[in-house]
């Protein structure tokens, strides 16, 4: 990747505009075949392409990726819960805070690259073998009924990843006949990777390692990340 930017972007380095023609061409393929199905995108030149597609266009997006864009290699499928954790980083001891703590407002869920309107988003990555081209596709799943079309008919490898996303986030994948638990016991209740699911080990006993960097002996620069431009080797 380093020599890519060196060769193709060298003339433009002076104008401070970094372009990434290969990924822009890839984006154009999705826009051409999905039309309004492409809601938003985010392009980091030389690093990655994120495309958010409409919920109805999710299955079609997989077909376009495989058949039109040449991204035949299935990488992974997962989900992100954008709500901040009500437990924070479990810094507080369980006796100080009520359990369970109040859930954050729905408006606190801020989506990442390429935006989003739902609390939980499904994202999947597909790549083109032999190159460094890859697209991360995102899709909103409705808050009240988390349900999305399956990819398992197009990418066989998605079947297991959907099983994992199903048990971890409670997302239903229409068309995936086998959504049994893959990691958790069959009778397990709840969806562990949702933010409201407590990490009970931490609730029972606060983690002593939450303070990662202890104050330097004799130093008075603790709690001030900006001011501590120390040599990394000392840390």
């Amino acid at each position: 990747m380093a020599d890519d930017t060196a060769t193709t972007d060298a003339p433009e380095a002076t104008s401070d505009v970094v372009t990434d023609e290969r990924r822009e061409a890839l984006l154009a393929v999705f826009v051409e075949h999905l039309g309004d199905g492409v809601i938003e995108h985010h392009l980091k030149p030389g690093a990655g392409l994120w495309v958010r597609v409409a919920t109805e266009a999710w299955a079609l997006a997989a077909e376009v990726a495989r058949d039109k864009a040449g991204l035949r290699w299935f990488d992974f499928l997962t989900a992100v819960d954008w709500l901040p954790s009500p437990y924070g980083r479990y810094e507080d001891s369980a006796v100080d805070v009520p359990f369970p703590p109040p859930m954050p407002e729905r408006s606190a869920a801020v989506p990442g690259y390429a935006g989003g309107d739902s609390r939980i988003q499904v994202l999947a990555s597909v790549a083109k073998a032999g190159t460094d081209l890859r697209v991360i596709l995102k899709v909103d799943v409705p808050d009240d009924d988390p349900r999305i079309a399956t990819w398992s008919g197009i990418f066989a490898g998605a079947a297991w990843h959907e099983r994992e996303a199903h048990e971890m986030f409670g997302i239903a994948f229409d068309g995936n006949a086998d959504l049994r638990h893959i990691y958790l016991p069959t009778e397990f209740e709840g969806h562990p990777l949702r933010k409201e699911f407590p990490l009970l080990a931490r609730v029972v006993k606060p983690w002593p390692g939450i303070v990662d960097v202890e104050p330097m002996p004799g130093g008075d620069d603790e709690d001030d990340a900006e001011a501590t431009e120390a040599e990394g080797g000392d840390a």
Partner: protein
Amino acid sequence: MTLMTESQQLAYANAQAADGRVNVELETDDGMVLNMGPQHPATHGTLRIIARLDGEQVTSADVMCGYMHRGYEKLCEVRTYPQVTTLVNRIDWLGSFANEVPFILAAEQLMEIEAPPRAMWIRTILFELSRIANVSLFIGDLALQLGAQTPAFLAFRDREFVLNQIESVTGGRFHPNFDRIGGLKDDLPKGWIADTKAAMGRLRSFCDDMEGLVYGNEIFQTRTRGIGVIPAHVAQSYGLSGANLRGSGVDWDLRRDANVGLAYDQLDWKVWTHPDGDSFSRCWVRLQEVREATKIVDQLCDGLPSGPIMAKVPRIIKVPAGEAYVATENPLGAMGYYVVSRGDIGPFRVKIRSASFNNISIAPWLLRGVYVPDIIAILASLYFILGDIDR
């Protein structure tokens, strides 16, 4: 099984005759259910396979994992960035250092810092040493699963040379926890380069031994050639990676094609592929990759640049908000971390894309129609580490 050659059919006939007593039990009207695992000696780890049999042939196989699920993705959300390396060391425990690299690279990408060249080269050396330690054990284990004892002992013996080198740099034989955001914990100890080159020589002769002892063995060939064939398009749609993908003729190696800062683009090396897609080709590609890795390490040792091993990083690491996905070519295949940061001291969400999860997800498809002894050979050739499946 149209793919079987005559000699293979003969081998099956012999095996069936020898196991006549078992065959009586297996030949039931509506098939028999064969449960392997979760504690089965042939699955090296707690993987459970439930195969439905018609005689000696598998009609359907269900692969069950999760007996070792440790919830790393949830745990990452409550750890700080430097603490995550300790966790991810335990994913693929035979090549631990390689697990740290993509995560650190993803964090560095978000922080827009770059490790100094010397750190990148040493990272690459340790990355390749992890591959050699991991895959050399695979070769021994492969032979063990097919009934040969000696190669396993040779593999354990020669892997020790590599582990010693890893240990003398990092202090850890299995869990180095050596990679830092912005560089490495320490520089190489004195005299290490010469020792490493000697060890690489040992490993090359190990590869030569194995090529004759295992790969040239008639029994090994009969049990792997033409068995468990994965066509290239199926391999891609399951997301197979590493030698499993290259064994199906797909010429793709993230080290060459999607290198993220490591020193591979400055070296002279070759990506090995095999067109057959059967168990043999997957194993063969792995052997070639160990040999290639020893040459890579030699070149890295020769060209090691001088300079610092740590970039300037804040003492308390806060990663700016953003998302990054970095994948590297780990011993088992493509391993990536999707890191979502909210500008905090720890990640907001980490998705661990481990190679074995995708690699083993093809097993139900692949095992359909094979014979019972081939289950072992095929699973061995897919090569998975349970920690890498279950995370």
